[in-house]
């Protein structure tokens, strides 16, 4: 790249840009800084809009389900384990590294499950629920990796299918499940039938330090002789991948967290038809419109030197994770080893997965 890239615009556009720049009080700013501010502002505008709309929609769709599921799970929560027990033997001084596995396209494109299964990695494996079966089938099993966890936070009944397989049943008694107190009881039953060990936590959604928030009330109800303080609670960032990253440092005290398959985006070579299979794109949308370009942007990942397409859901998820990573305690080192995607920025080290394994003699 040269330090003098040129953009050709006609006089009329240049005049409009100059007017806008002056009107924004940036008359004395150089063009680079002004464009940078403008891009950030446009991006922040869009992501804030997404966050507001999603918050409203998720509340409408799931709030009642969360309460119903919690009520159904309460007896099991009283009798099972709290995630707090997983923290007992871990400190920031002896915490092991964790590999968090999501099911983004890079996981399969870059054969990361096979690479991991052939490695000598001896830290924690934290599987997001949706990739559990694939991971086990690929040789990433609790027999090879002794500290094996799977995480579920979503409330829908269909999540049980992630646990409903012979291979999960085969390894079930060696897998630790970390469940949000609002998951579907059907998911719980399938996991329990597979002899998986269950650890509970709360997913934060309305805690505000008053006695009226559901998070507060739910925790009061979970307090029993074996959960004297109730359950710890985590930020989910809206998805199980971000939840798993949270669990890695807050519960398991991992000083290094390696992300695989947490792309929060699609390779730019993927067609919209293909993307539609991951997250449905509204059928009547004009893909050339301004609003489509804001809702479905293509971004450049400078650390992996690649482009990545996003949709509103992945913009929502990635904005949160990118914001939270630098806010974690200073002893936490997050490595994005996906080889692409949208997770880059302050506090995030992007590194090829094989290089990470070699560097650490895994």
């Amino acid at each position, binding site marked *: 790249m040269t330090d003098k890239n040129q953009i050709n615009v006609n006089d009329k556009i240049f005049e409009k840009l100059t007017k806008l720049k002056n009107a924004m009080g940036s008359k004395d700013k150089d063009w680079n800084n002004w464009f940078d501010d403008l891009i950030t502002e446009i991006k922040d505008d869009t992501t804030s809009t997404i966050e507001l*709309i999603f918050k409203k929609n998720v509340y409408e769709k799931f709030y009642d389900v969360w309460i119903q599921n919690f009520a159904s799970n309460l007896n099991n929560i009283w009798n099972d384990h709290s995630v707090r027990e997983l923290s007992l033997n871990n400190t920031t001084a002896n915490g092991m590294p964790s590999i968090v596995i999501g099911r983004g396209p890079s996981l399969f494109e870059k054969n990361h499950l096979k690479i991991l299964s052939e490695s000598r990695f001896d830290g924690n494996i934290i599987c997001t629920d949706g990739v559990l079966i694939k991971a086990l089938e690929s040789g990433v099993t609790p027999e090879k990796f002794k500290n094996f966890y799977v995480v579920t936070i979503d409330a829908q009944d269909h999540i049980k299918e992630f646990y409903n397989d012979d291979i999960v049943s085969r390894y079930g008694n060696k897998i630790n499940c970390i469940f949000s107190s609002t998951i579907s009881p059907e998911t719980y039953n399938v996991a329990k039938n597979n002899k998986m060990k269950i650890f509970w936590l709360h997913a934060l959604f*309305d805690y505000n330090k008053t006695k009226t928030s559901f998070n507060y009330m739910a925790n009061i109800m979970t307090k029993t002789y074996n959960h004297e303080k109730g359950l710890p609670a985590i930020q989910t960032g809206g998805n199980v991948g971000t939840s798993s990253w949270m669990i890695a440092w807050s519960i398991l005290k991992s000083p290094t967290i390696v992300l695989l398959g947490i792309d929060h985006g699609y390779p730019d070579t993927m067609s919209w038809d293909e993307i539609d299979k991951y997250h449905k794109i509204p059928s009547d949308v004009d893909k050339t419109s301004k609003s489509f370009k804001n*809702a479905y942007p293509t971004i450049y990942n400078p650390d992996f030197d690649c482009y990545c397409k996003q949709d509103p859901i992945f913009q929502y998820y990635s904005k949160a994770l990118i914001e939270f990573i630098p806010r974690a305690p200073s002893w936490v080192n997050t490595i994005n080893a996906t080889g692409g995607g949208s997770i880059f920025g302050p506090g995030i080290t992007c590194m090829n997965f094989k290089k990470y394994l070699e560097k650490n003699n895994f």
Partner: protein
Amino acid sequence: MIKGNFNIKKIEIDEKDNNQKELEALIAKAGAGSHMIFRSEDKDDELFLDEL
């Protein structure tokens, strides 16, 4: 004869508002995921709470 004394204003359609509405409609149609980002006035409470 009826006399009128109306203040007639030209209604300007704000292009930005229209774009914003279009964007919001598109986002709403794009789905919403299944969980939500938790926001708190106390930023220290947002990531992890050992005890509520």
